[in-house]
């Protein structure tokens, strides 16, 4: 009986979660989730924009495009870091590495944003993008002209997002690789496998679930990042990007950067609430799927190594 008395306190997180969802639902008035809302239309209407001028389709494409590209890069790099520090490095440098990556998890996203905007952008515009165009121009997305507004665009956003999520994915992947039973690793080595062969044939298959969940949680983080993306993605041009150098927009960064307008236009306000709801659902689904895979979790990944 006493156990149930404490339950409301234990359910504080659930209550807050419920409150967030309920308030957003009420604010949206549950209207306008029709076909036009999910459409891909985008045109600039003088005066009050509403769902008929912008469909969320464009924003979702921009969101998934930037998040998945940065995730591909981040997965490759953080898997390399994780394997290196768990398998190849001696214990002390390995621990040091994980401490440094965890430290970097704390650098605020606005700081990544201003660095991307002021420091990286000129480098991208003058050096990286022209050389990418020369070398990989034949690949879809890598050819085509630079954008009119300057070097701020999809590629810069992808790069900044990649650097931002690497600490999280590395911490989660390290934990997944470390949780492979030592017995199995030693059994692999005892049959005369090299370290790499044990990684390839024992550690990666056994840690598969944990690795997937690291990838998904990184994806959730990239999807939801608003400030840094808003700063480097090139203003608020609402368009599907013709190539990687062009500007585009994401749901989160759009919501964040449109505050001023929302104060003036009630219709835009409702649209942004609906965008928030969609973003919430997407992020929650990604997180729930990630949680199904393992016990390692987001809230404690870079401090306690996650998990219970």
């Amino acid at each position, binding site marked *: 009986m006493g156990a149930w008395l404490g339950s409301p306190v234990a359910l504080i997180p659930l209550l807050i979660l419920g409150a967030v969802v309920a308030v957003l639902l009420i604010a949206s008035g549950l209207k306008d989730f029709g076909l036009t809302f999910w459409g891909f239309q985008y045109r600039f209407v003088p005066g009050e924009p509403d769902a008929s001028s912008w469909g969320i389709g464009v924003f979702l494409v921009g969101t998934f495009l930037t998040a998945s590209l940065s995730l591909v890069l981040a997965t490759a790099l953080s898997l390399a870091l994780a394997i290196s520090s768990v398998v190849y490095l*001696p214990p002390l440098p390995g621990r040091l590495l994980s401490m440094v990556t965890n430290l970097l998890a704390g650098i605020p996203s606005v700081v990544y944003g201003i660095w991307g905007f002021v420091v990286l952008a000129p480098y991208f515009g003058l050096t990286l993008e022209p050389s990418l165009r020369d070398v990989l121009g034949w690949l879809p997305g890598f050819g085509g002209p630079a954008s009119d507004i300057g070097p701020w665009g999809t590629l810069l956003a992808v790069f900044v997002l990649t650097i931002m999520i690497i600490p999280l994915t590395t911490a989660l992947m390290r934990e997944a690789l470390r949780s492979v039973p030592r*017995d199995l690793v030693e*059994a692999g*080595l005892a*049959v*005369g496998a*090299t370290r790499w062969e044990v990684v390839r*044939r024992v550690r990666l*298959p056994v840690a598969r679930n944990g690795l997937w969940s690291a990838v998904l949680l990184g994806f959730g983080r990239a999807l939801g990042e608003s400030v840094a993306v808003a700063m480097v993605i090139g203003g608020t041009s609402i368009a599907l990007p013709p190539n990687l150098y062009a500007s585009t927009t994401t749901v989160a960064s759009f919501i964040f950067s449109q505050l001023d307008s929302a104060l003036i236009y009630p219709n835009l306000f409702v649209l942004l609430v609906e965008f928030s709801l969609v973003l919430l659902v997407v992020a929650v689904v990604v997180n729930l799927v990630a949680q199904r895979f393992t016990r390692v979790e987001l809230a404690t990944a870079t401090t306690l190594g996650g998990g219970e």
Partner: protein
Amino acid sequence: MNERNDNLVPRGSSAGSSPLVCPKCGAPVAAAGTEAPLKCGRCGTPLSAGSPRAATSPIAAASEDRGEIILAIDRLSVLARNKPLISDVSLHIPVGKVTAIIGPSGCGKTTLLRSMNRMVELHHLQVKGTVRYLGQDIYGAQVNPVLVRRRIGMVFQRPTVFPTSVFENVAFGLRLDGESEDTVEKAVVSSLRRTGLWDEVKEALDRPALTLSGGQQQRLCIARALAVSPRVLLMDEPTSSLDPVATQRVEDLIFELKSDYTVVIVTHNMQQAARVADLTAFMYQGRLVEFDTTKRVFEQPKEKLTENYITGRFG
């Protein structure tokens, strides 16, 4: 399988004068017999003829007359952060016999076993002294641990099956070598037959290995170790997680294996040592106390400590 035993005579490794020892790292240096200047194989320190020679401890020497030695452990110490786990152990393990290492828990018997195929390195322990396999220092600079473990296989306390099929578990080591499908299949079948598992799993080769019983899993691990044709099989309390029936089967298997393999088994179970081992080593607090034929160790131990342990006064 028997043909392997023909080339096991370790020429010059146990006979003749004892080898030179590197003054820096304690590795033995084979006398090359030429005028070439001698250098330590492990750390490269140049040596002169006046360098100290390995002192063969009495316990090791006593075992020299038991036939060909496949693993010669001399003055071996293993340290964790300068704290010795085993100190100054010398033990010569003869070919084609089952050698048991017994002793109370924490006496270093598992560490000793794991130093025989360089598994101790995984725990970043410091190794001093030598372990020579057929005359060659397994900790030598040119020796890769992968090759050591190919020759000196290992079975662990708990069955360590990989989460793949029965077949793929046994094929694990062979796949690494890129053997043809045909060769792999032959070797898997012969290893499974050798461990007596074939009749039990021949219908279930594609089933996940984790669905086998504990005893079957442990024999599967032995089959997996045998599939890469080692000469020595190290077993770390292989029956400690098994029920009596499964234990009996593994013990029978160990007994059969010694016609083709040299087996070293660590056990906390003295009856088991008495049942399966030809030779028994007794360790206590990181030191080797006594090493002799199992019969003598159990019936007329030379050391009081051994006697006390055997008769159950401690441990």
